[in-house]
Every structure is written in C-alpha cells, then in structure tokens.
C-alpha cells in the first residue's frame, strides 16, 4: 500500500514550537497563493515509522548479506563512520559561515585530499564531484580545457575501450567529445595495435579502467601511456576499480593524467540505494589549474581556506564544496585502515576474487584465463545454450537463496556475462556458500529449468514486468 493510501485527512505527525511572530500574510498578493491542493499524506508519527519500517524490510542490503555486484564494490560500511558523519559539528555548519569557523571541516577535506593524492599518485584533487559519473564529467572537461588552453582545438575525440563502463562514453559525450570505441583483444585487454591505429592529432584522451571491467590488469599499460602521450593526448583513469590496487601500485605511476575515484566504493562509504556518493577528481600538476573552484588549500600559517582564484578553472560542478558528510566517512575509513590496512584490503579483495573465480570455474566458463584482480567475469553462453535458462534467470534465482545477484550482461564484450566482485570484507565461508548455491542453481537449470526461469519465488514480490512498466509508464501515485 502506498503512503498516500494510508493518509487520513486532518491527522498530524508533527508539532511545531509555539510561534512568537504571528502570520499576517497581508503583503502576499492573492494571486501568488497556492490554490492547487497539496496532496501530501497526512499521518501520525507511528504511521510514518511503520510505513518505512515495512519498506525497509523489503530491501536487500550489505548488512543483510553478500552483494557480489561486479564493479560496485559492495564492501562493509563501518558503523563508526556513520556515527562520525552525524556529529553536530559536521552536520550543522552552514557552507557560508566565516572560513575561520569551519577549520575542522576544511582540515578534514585537506587531509583527505592529501591521502587520496598519495594513494593514487596524483598531485592535486578536487573533492567537489558528487558521484563517479560527475567526476568523469569533471575530468573530461579538464581534458577539454587543457587542449583548448594550448589552442589545440582539433582534439575532439575520446577513445574508449568497448569494455568500458557506460558512463565513460556518456561523460565524454557530455563534455562535448566524439566517442570512438576501441575493440578489445580476445583476452579482454586493450588492443595496443588497435590503439595505435586510432591515435592521431584529433584524439584528446584515452579513457581507461585498470584493472579493466573484466578484472584484468592492462599489462601493457606503460606502453599504452607512452603511445598516448606521444600522440599529444591525455590518459584518463576510471577509478571505479581502485579496490585492487591500493598500496600495490598507483595510477599516477602508471602514467595517468586524470583520475576519478568513487569514495562510495573503494573507501567504504555506503551506497544509500544509489547515492549520495562522492567522485573526487585527481590530476597531475600540469592540469591542476583547470580543477573546479573552490579548492581547499592550506595557508602558510597553518589555516585552511577555499581558493577561488583559479582563472583557468573549468568552473563549478555543483553548489558548495562536495558531499561533505560522505567525505567524513571516507576520511575516517582511511584513518582506520592506514597504509597497512588499505594494502591488506586490496590484497584480500584480489585473493577473494581469484578464489571465487576458481570455485565457480567448476560450473561456468570464466571469461579470461588470466589471473584476475578484484573481480572477474563469467561467460554464461555455454550454460545458456545447454540449459535454455538465461543468465537473468540465474540472477533472479540467486535472490531466492538470500544472496544478491552479480552484475549481469556487462561488460558487453562477454556473452551472457556475470560480473562478480566479492570485496575483501567477505569471508571464505561466504564465498564457499555462494559457490555452493551457484552449483545448486546450475543443477536446477538442468533438472528443473522452469523453477529457475520463473524465479524469484521467495521475495516480497515475484518477477516484475518491467516491459509494460516502460511501455505504459505510471510515474506517480494518483
């Protein structure tokens, strides 16, 4: 039942303090006053609590179980960080307070920025972007600004591997680039020869994820960087897949010029059903002058300030300074893990992925024979051919067993793909159990395919009709 159907006219869930100024309203012209009825629900506080408690019970979440969503890095979100982000000294400060009265906030941002620079090997970072895609757009606008600043106006092509996240081409297009896709090798890696063919004086940038979306390390990265730079283009790093590399190697050392990060992935800030996240953008020194304003800086006297004095900046990407509460959580996470913990996290993430890949290779073909990094992709095409059961059905059937499904049908270059990222916070026991469930489902797909095809059976609703939902859309309760 929707919350609107629970509404009772005149019921109230709020009470305001006694007002000390009475409303006259005489100055507000009648024609400005709302005539259209505002049909918000009318409920008691308990009504509201019960409604959302019921909704909460219908959600899967990290606290409930395993979330092997490839490329999403669904790791444990420490409770400590939620507590810290809700401290009054963080939540109740206005962005336009005098800068000397928000030194704690600025110091936190500055130190977080410094730590992220160290982790990525970049020279300067903006914490402003609100999400990964927002960071990508920021980064691509910086690439654009860089070439224009050199009067290199021809460079309007962004090269993107065909294995890339959809946001890469979308962000490139939004920044005004023409997107050219590069075919991957059979191995799922960037094809250096293909790259060479495409590099010319119209190319502004190569966008790369490394490890890539198949979970493979681009082993030719140093050569790739050399080629790209020699061609006068920049190298962009999609940091969505940073979880494999902390303390092991750094984008900056690999030759990347621009990096965006997803704090809500690698740095354990919660996803909140799809946001708020945070997508900082880091650059090498020669690009720092194009970063969005304001930048958090430290004065010689040790105080912190917001630097608006970047005449070549691409400008603002949003209001104010970034998703500050999210930054608090990432900051606390980095303090907690430290140099040793971050490295251990990456190593265990990679160990988990390779272990699970090995277990699942009993049931499925894995998309590449090479050692994976923090995630891997299963090629379900043989399974689908053999059983007639789709990978989507396997995904839905997993829900019945109380685990979330992997990312499916991505990356596009693998047929019937399942992209699996266990993260380091999952235990061997959880991985063993997941593999066992997968084994059962494969078994079911052979012996009782209809059971799998009609899944899920144990969820709050059965399989939903999303085709009709888009064909005859119902956008709101009426």
């Amino acid at each position: 039942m929707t919350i609107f159907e629970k509404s009772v006219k005149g019921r109230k869930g709020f009470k305001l303090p006694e007002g000390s100024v009475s409303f006259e309203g005489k100055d507000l012209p009648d024609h400005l006053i709302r005539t259209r009825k505002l049909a918000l629900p009318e409920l008691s506080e308990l009504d509201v609590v019960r409604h959302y408690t019921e909704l909460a019970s219908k959600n899967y979440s990290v606290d409930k179980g395993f979330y092997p969503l490839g490329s999403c890095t669904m790791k444990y979100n420490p409770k400590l960080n939620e507590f810290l982000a809700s401290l009054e000294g963080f939540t109740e400060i206005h962005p336009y307070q005098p800068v000397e009265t928000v030194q704690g906030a600025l110091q936190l941002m500055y130190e977080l920025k410094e730590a992220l620079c160290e982790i990525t090997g970049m020279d300067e970072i903006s914490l402003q972007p609100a999400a990964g895609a927002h960071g990508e757009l920021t980064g691509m606008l910086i690439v654009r600004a860089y070439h224009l600043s050199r009067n290199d106006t021809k460079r309007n092509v962004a090269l993107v591997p065909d294995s890339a996240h959809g946001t890469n081409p979308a962000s490139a297009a939004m920044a005004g680039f023409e997107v050219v896709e590069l075919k991957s090798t059979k191995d799922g890696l960037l094809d250096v020869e293909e790259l060479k063919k495409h590099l010319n004086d119209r190319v502004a940038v190569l966008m790369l994820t490394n490890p890539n979306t198949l979970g493979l390390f681009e082993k030719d990265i140093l050569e790739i960087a050399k080629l790209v730079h020699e061609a006068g283009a920049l190298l962009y790093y999609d940091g969505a897949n940073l979880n494999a590399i902390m303390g092991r190697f750094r984008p900056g050392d690999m030759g990347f010029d621009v990096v965006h990060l997803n704090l809500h992935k690698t740095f354990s800030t919660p996803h909140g059903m799809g946001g708020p996240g945070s997508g900082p953008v880091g650059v090498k020194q020669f690009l720092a002058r194009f970063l969005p304003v304001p930048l958090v800086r430290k004065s010689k006297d040790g105080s912190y300030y917001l630097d608006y004095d970047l005449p070549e900046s691409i400008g603002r990407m949003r209001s104010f300074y970034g998703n500050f509460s999210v930054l608090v959580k990432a900051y606390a996470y980095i303090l907690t893990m430290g140099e040793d913990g971050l490295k251990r996290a990456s190593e265990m993430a990679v160990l988990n992925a390779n272990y699970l890949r090995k277990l699942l290779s009993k049931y499925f073909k894995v998309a590449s024979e090479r050692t994976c990094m923090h995630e891997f992709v299963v090629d379900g095409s043989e399974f689908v051919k053999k059983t007639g059961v789709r990978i989507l059905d396997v995904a839905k059937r997993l829900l019945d067993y109380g685990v979330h499904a992997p990312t499916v049908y991505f990356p596009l270059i693998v047929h019937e793909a399942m992209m699996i990222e266990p993260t380091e916070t999952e235990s061997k026991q959880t991985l063993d159990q997941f593999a066992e469930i997968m084994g059962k489902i494969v078994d079911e797909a052979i012996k009782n395919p209809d059971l799998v095809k009609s899944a899920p059976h144990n969820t709050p609703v059965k399989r939903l009709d999303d085709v009709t939902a888009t064909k005859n859309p119902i956008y709101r309760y009426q």
Partner: protein
Amino acid sequence: MFPYIPHTEQEVQEMLKVIGFESIEDLYRDVPMTVRRLNLPKGLDEFTVARMVKELSEKNVVVEKEKVFAGAGIYVHHIPYVVKSIVSRPEFVTAYTPYQAEVSQGTLQALFEYQTMICELTGMEVANSSMYDGASALAEAVLMAHRINGRTKVLMSEAVHPEYVQTCKTYARGFDLQFVSIAVDENGSTDLKLLANFIDAESCAVVVQQPNFFGIIEDLRRVREVAKDLVLIVVAEPISLSLLEPPGSFGADIVVGDGQPLGIPPNFGGPTVGFFATLEKYVRKMPGRIIGQTKDAEGKTGYVMILQTREQHIRRGKATSNICTNHALMALTNAVYMSLMGPEGLREIAERSYANAHYLAQRLEEKGFKLKFKGPFFNEFVFVVPEDYERLWRDLFNEGFLAPLPLAWFDERYRGLALACATEVNTKESIERLLDAMERGLK
C-alpha cells in the same frame, strides 16, 4: 588483523592453495610496477579515530538554530528526530541501486512516492528519483532544454543563485550554448521587458528562480507569457511551494530545485539532493532514474526502474545524461520529512518563515535600514548595509549569529547589500537580539 577484513592467515593459505598460488605476490604477477609503500600512517583503532575526527568536528563553530539568519541555498529548519531514525536504517543506507527490483521494493516504492510528492509540490506531471543537488539539476535542465528544441541561447535571470549559474556554464562547456543574463528591475524580479528584448530565434530557454536569489517572488504568469515557446525552467525552493502557486500551474516546462530544506541538515553544503520535474511529453529527454509502478507475475503491485534506455548504462554515449548514482538516500529523507509534515505542516512552516522574515524586515526598517527591493518576498530579502559590512558580519558571528550574508561575496556589484533569511526556527527574541547586536556593532 583488521576488524573489517575477516581473513585469518590460515584461511589465506587455504585459499591460495585452492587457486594454486604460493603467495599474495603471485596474484600481482601481471603488474609491472614495483610495489611502493604509501606515505600514510598505519591503521588506527576506532576509538582513536573517533577521538581525532570528533576533535575536528569541534573545531567547527555551530550556531544556535534560532540565531541563523542566512540562507542563500542552504536553509536551517526544524527536523523531526524520527527522520534520522528512519533514514539511518541500514536497509536503506547499505543498499545498492535497485537493479534487482524484487529485493529492492523498499527503495523503489519509497522513490516512487518521492516522485509523486515532488509532482505535487511543483505541480508537474513527472519527476525523476533525484539529482545531486539543485545546481547540477538546473545544469541538466538547461542541457535538456537544448535537447528539446536544439536552440542554443539560454536567458538566465540575474536572480538565479550565482553558484547555480556557474554550474550551468560549466556543464555547457561541451555544447555551443550562450548564456544571457537578464537583470532584475527595481522590484527585484527578473526584468521582463529586458527579457522580451533578448528573445530571438536562437533562444532556447528562460531560467528563473522562485523565490529568486534576492528572495523575491517572481510573477511566473508573466514570465510564461513573455517566454512563449521557449522552454521555461524554474528553480524552486520546495517549502515555499506549500504556500505559493506552483510553477506547474503557470506552465513551466521543467522545475528543479534543491531538496535540502525538506529534512536535510546543512551538512556544510552537501549532500543535499536535486529534484527534477517536467511534463510527460518531455520524459524521454529527461536525465536521471525514474521509478514506475507495475505488476509482478502474480498481479501484485510492484515498482521498477523504467525508461532505462535513456540512461548511460544502456545508451552509453547517446544517453540523456551520464548520471547514474544519484542522491536516493536524501530523496528518501525528503519523502520521510514530507510524510511527517503533510500539507498542513509544510504550510505552517512556510507561513512561519514568511512571518518571521517579514517581521525581521519591518524591524530593520524601523531601525533605519532600507530594503533594496519592493517586490513581494518569502523568507529572504535584500537590504542595504554599509560598504564594509563584512567586518560587522564577522563580529556578529562572534556574538553567536550567522547574520544576513554580505552579497558582495557573490558579486562586487552587490557591495553594500546583505541577504537576510528567516525560517520557523527563528524567534521574536532572536530577531530582536540580532537587531540589538547590529545596532551596537554599527556604532
């Protein structure tokens, strides 16, 4: 050992054995780079981290709510405690994007209800399930307007929040858009004669803010008349929409805004949430996720993401926007807040804000200050202050007030002006005390 990483050394060895490797180093054998020790401190225990972060939080000065007289995009309101208690539930906080609808009905229904509430507030037909903030929502609205009619000239009221204008300009860098700023008249509203003069065949959209950056309530009926067949984009403050006739009633094409006033604390400016509403006919040009109602295999009502072919993960380079992660948890916060307040509560808050702001304005006038504009205002207004007001403003902060903001910050043209704000959190007493402190400070 780290509390967040479960692996014992014995398990690591067992797992390596299964994979057929000797050591962790083997896992990285494809990587040509040398391992490098990060120049970061070692990991700390949570008690030490808590102490350190708490100390940082205490280096920030929190102003008592009733003594905040600044808005300009972030507004201080009373937030019922139950809001946080609901939205901090791990089932919401630690859930992912609802890709698997059958185990995400909580998220999906909540966002569907949120969309409905935004439609109600704005008077529009369809809303998406959230944007990052008001500024980026506006920037996306401008790009959408360009998608709608292909034209390139955006007529932007001077009285749109400067940071929003800047964001639009950044977003438009990849496109060949020009922005024309339309000044305000002596009432503080967008000068419609000027606007009319600027409109030509290349004009794509008109952008106004309601109430505008100077607090003035724009006459949207007349804006619509002048804007004729242009895309009319309105940036609206949501609480005011419980009192004011919504933009949808005047024929707005796109209504965006920031949901921060609806139950979200200031958070030093973020995260807030952007809302984005339009007309059904434009829905396929709209950015962002949309949740729709549908049925399951047994005919039971359920909710799914719809119209995904607009989005980046399907359409890639041809998507309406690159946005994927949005601000769902903050949209939920808006929905919970609106559910508690209902139409009457929201209206009461709007009326009290109105009353307090007008009382403050009246008392300022009695003390000899002049209001800059004559137009009707809601909870913010501009008044004339000495050129060096910023010094007084800092003094007032030391007396515990976040006083009306020096407008010179935003543009040197505004030197000698301040932007005041009052909401339901202010009291007669706190207003009088502000006035006293200002008087003392000016002497």
